[in-house]
């Protein structure tokens, strides 16, 4: 569910973020989040465009129709998260892990990722068009209908993943 965003003061936004378990339709862009533990929270229709996440723990969290476009994730953990129908277009991920997560129908186009992991995750119907991936692991992932077009890859592992069900651009197939 996605709602039109509400206008709320930054201090009130941050208080809502830390005290509430369920967050609907809030616009957090372009706030900075450092060394926070936001594990287990539920976000629907929230916007984090151009936001900075550094050392943030988002394990077991749940996101629906959220927008992280052009956000920056450094040293973040999103282990066992459920993120569906969200956009990370143009975002950056460094030393960030999304291991063992449900990451269906997500937009990772233009993602700039390094030393990050999607291991053991379900990436069904997600897209990595024009993404730049360096030292990134997609080991043991479900890649059915996942698109990798015009993607730059350096030391990217797809070990034990169903790459034959993924969609790669011409000459970009990892096999």
């Amino acid at each position, binding site marked *: 569910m996605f*709602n039109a965003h509400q206008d709320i003061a930054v201090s009130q936004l941050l208080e809502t973020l830390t005290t509430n378990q369920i967050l609907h339709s809030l616009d957090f862009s372009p706030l900075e989040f450092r060394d926070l533990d936001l594990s287990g929270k539920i976000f629907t229709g929230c916007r984090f465009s151009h936001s900075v996440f550094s050392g943030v723990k988002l394990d077991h969290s749940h996101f629906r129709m959220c927008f992280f476009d052009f956000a920056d994730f450094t040293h973040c953990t999103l282990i066992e998260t459920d993120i569906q129908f969200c956009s990370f277009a143009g975002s950056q991920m460094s030393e960030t892990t999304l291991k063992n997560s449900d990451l269906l129908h997500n937009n990772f186009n233009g993602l700039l990722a390094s030393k990050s992991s999607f291991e053991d995750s379900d990436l069904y119907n997600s897209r990595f068009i024009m993404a730049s991936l360096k030292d990134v692991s997609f080991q043991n992932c479900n890649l059915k209908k996942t698109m990798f077009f015009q993607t730059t890859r350096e030391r990217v592992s797809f070990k034990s993943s169903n790459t034959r069900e993924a969609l*790669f651009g*011409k000459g970009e197939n990892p096999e």
Partner: protein
Amino acid sequence: MKIYYHYSKDGFSNGYLVGNEKTGEAVIIDPGVMNNELLGHIEKNRFRLDAVLVTHNHESHHRGLRPLLRIYAPRVYAADTELKGRKTVLLQGDGTFAAAGFAIRYFAVPGHSPDSLMFQIENVLFTGDALSAGRLGTTNNMYGKRNLLTHLKNKLLSQNDDIIIMSGHGPPSTVGAERLYNAEMMDGASVKEI
């Protein structure tokens, strides 16, 4: 405005229920499937279904129309005079109409199909198959592609970067992201699949 996203495994297509909390009314965009989940969203919110908007006349985008019309009596808006034996409110060119208390803008974007439309409700643009995240809609020939590109450049890229895009297939996006990461749109070059 409340939006519920609905995925059809039959045609791998997206449908959307858009509710107006002020009026208690709703519209459905591209009912690719009608099932208990969609019914549940309508009933749980006690929405009165005012209209169905069809982006184009392809089965995967209106397969659920017939069962939907057995339960509810919405107006059906499309760029075809008839869908599933039901007369529609015909939309041609670009314009605005009112449904569910929303001022809904529509844009003709022929290319993927001659009857393709985009709908805009507040800051969300429903693009159907004209464009999805990082991809231009498929077309049958170069003329269709050029036609689609021209319409999208005039009607989509002319909008603000933070306008949200919800398409007929694939994940959501924004106008700003498509401006940067939709190579087909940027230069008209085709991304070749294996």
